């Protein structure tokens, strides 16, 4: 019988990352509140970050960690812009769901 090792390996992190990414995707698809959708996107981003870090450690390649910094910076900038848009839409409408914002319909 194989001894169950409790020392986390890279696969653990990758599985966690995949689960987080799936939760995030599902959240974006099913929720209608833009703020929650936004948080789900952040979750997806950080899931990817997690897999980057895990693989960087596993492969001994610093590039993976470097990319994570870029992702975080870009995500921060994206949050600023996205929240700005949401706030300004909120000012004009009382209630808000993502489905109300279909003004760009072709």
């Amino acid at each position, binding site marked *: 019988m194989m001894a169950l090792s409790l020392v986390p390996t890279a696969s653990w992190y990758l599985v966690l990352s995949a689960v987080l990414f799936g939760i995030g995707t599902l959240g974006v698809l099913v929720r209608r509140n833009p703020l929650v959708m936004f948080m789900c996107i952040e979750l997806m981003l950080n899931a990817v970050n997690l897999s980057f870090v895990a693989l960087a450690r596993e492969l001994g390649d610093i590039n993976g960690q470097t990319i994570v910094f870029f992702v975080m910076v870009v995500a921060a900038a994206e949050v600023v812009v996205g929240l700005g848009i949401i706030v300004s839409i909120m000012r004009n409408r009382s209630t808000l769901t*993502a489905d109300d914002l279909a003004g760009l319909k*072709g």
Partner: protein
Amino acid sequence: MLNLLWLIPLLPLAGALLNIAAGRKLGDPRSGWLATSATLISFLTTVLAYFELLGRQAEKRSHVETLFSWLPVGSLQVDFALLADPLSITMSLFVTGVSTLIHLYAIGYMHGDAKFSKFFIYLNLFVFSMLMLVLGENLLVTFLGWEGVGACSYLLISFWHTRNSAAVAGKKAFVTNRIGDFGVMIAMFLAFSHVGSLSYGAINEAAHAGELAAVSATAIALLLFVGACGKSAQLPLYFWLPDAMEGPTPVSALIHAATMVTSGVFLLTRINPVLHVSYAWVSTTVAVVGAATALFAATIAVSQNDIKRVLAYSTVSQLGLMFLAIGSGAYVAAIFHMVTHAFFKALLFLGSGSVIHGMHHEQDMRKMGALRKVMPITGFTFIIGWLAIAGVPPFAGFWSKDEILLYVFAKSPVLYVVGIVTALLTAYYMTRQVIMVFYGKARWRDHGDEHGAHGDFTPHESPRVMLMPLVVLSVLSVVGGAMQLPFSKDLHFLEHWLAPVVEESEAHIGKTWAYQNKYLLLLLAVAVATAGIVLALAVYAKAKLKVVEPKVLEQAWHYDGAVARVVAGPGAATFNLIAWFDANIVDGIVNGVGQVVRSVAGSLRKTQSGFVRVYALLISIGAVAILGWLLLRGVVL
């Protein structure tokens, strides 16, 4: 001093800019004085440059002033550079000198015109362009000036654009010039592909060193000659020049007699080494076209009744003589005649302008006569111009024309005969003009009622500001020949001065029969001039012979009409066909592409629901699909 060469063209440009900014405020006549002083200072600068060059040894009389790198594109390196050498300085001297006098004259002539300051803007811009043309160190700078003078010419011919004929004449001049400009452009491309440079120094050096094949030299020389034909009004592109007389008379004098039309002669002289290494028939072509034009235009001038049109055809004819000289390898003689012609033709045009001014804008010589009594100074100076162009010694035109004919004889006696017949006709039609305008009966008395309700109409002498240039130019027309006297090598001042530029290509006629009998030819030229004058006197003053003025000559051999018919008939049909092709086929393709994109996009845009979550779903499905595909292909894992 020569590093201030850029001042020469800059000054007229500055004058034009100042007049654009403040011309209306300065008004009549101060904006004119501003323009005149700009040109005058430019002239004085040129004189300084001349003495600077003169102080150097002959072989060092060349200075290139590079202002900036204009087109640094790969192997095409074109500098904005000016060249001071004997040829360009000679040209600049008479361009700025004659321009100054004509500016001065125009102050009087254009007095009271509603667009007074605008006229001087154009004049100054013209002088600027002309100076760029002659001072340019490469074909492109020259081409800048070349197009500039074309544009200014258009603006000035149609200066009184409310008159339909003036507007049409301006367009005609511009379009005809464009035909020649194509030649220059293609010549530039060829020069670049075969020499790798547009600089005159490099092109002429390559021709000297034998690096330029005879075939390419021939192509370049011929194409530049096409351009020269357009600008200098040679057959078959001459017909815009007589119509250009619609412009104000100072313009006719400046652009269409003294300066712009000589740029073709200048250009061919500038590239004389290329002409020299091209096939021999190129020079012969130039000579034959020149001779044909000279004779053709001279015959037409015999039957014209408009005082300015006579002079216009005479200009075409004299330019033909210059091309005849170039084709005969007589570059010095061509430049010599160009300079003397600038003096006496400017004088004649300004004189005719003075007559038109005094006659209250009447140009028909049949309504003039006996004007020397009411316009003594104009009459006197005009007579000097007449003697100069008719080839009476010792006036300037005699020496330069004789020099050309000497070289022409050495090249071909047939062309010489054409030249001498042209000289005969020149003396004839100019005498006819002088008699019709200044002698005989005062026919204007019968037409007094046509000039407004003055009742008692008397022509008047022009103001002093107009007479002054006439006097200066008449002095130059008398003494201009001293530049190059045939008697002794020591008296060939112009030849020694121009030697560094044209020495290698100049025809050597020292051992020919013509040269050894040059005094005989001189006498023959005098005899021919006298014969022409006597003939005209017999016909027009004494009425001993019948007046011969065939309709076909008055209509310019129907050449103009034929061109008009061809252009309006088959020409217009072709253009319409091309326009149809453009509107339907070319535009059709472009519009068709647009139509297809529109309709495809129209059906595709239905997928844009506007719901963010739908987009997100589609992205997810797409991502999963790509991932699945990669997994199946075994690319990942």
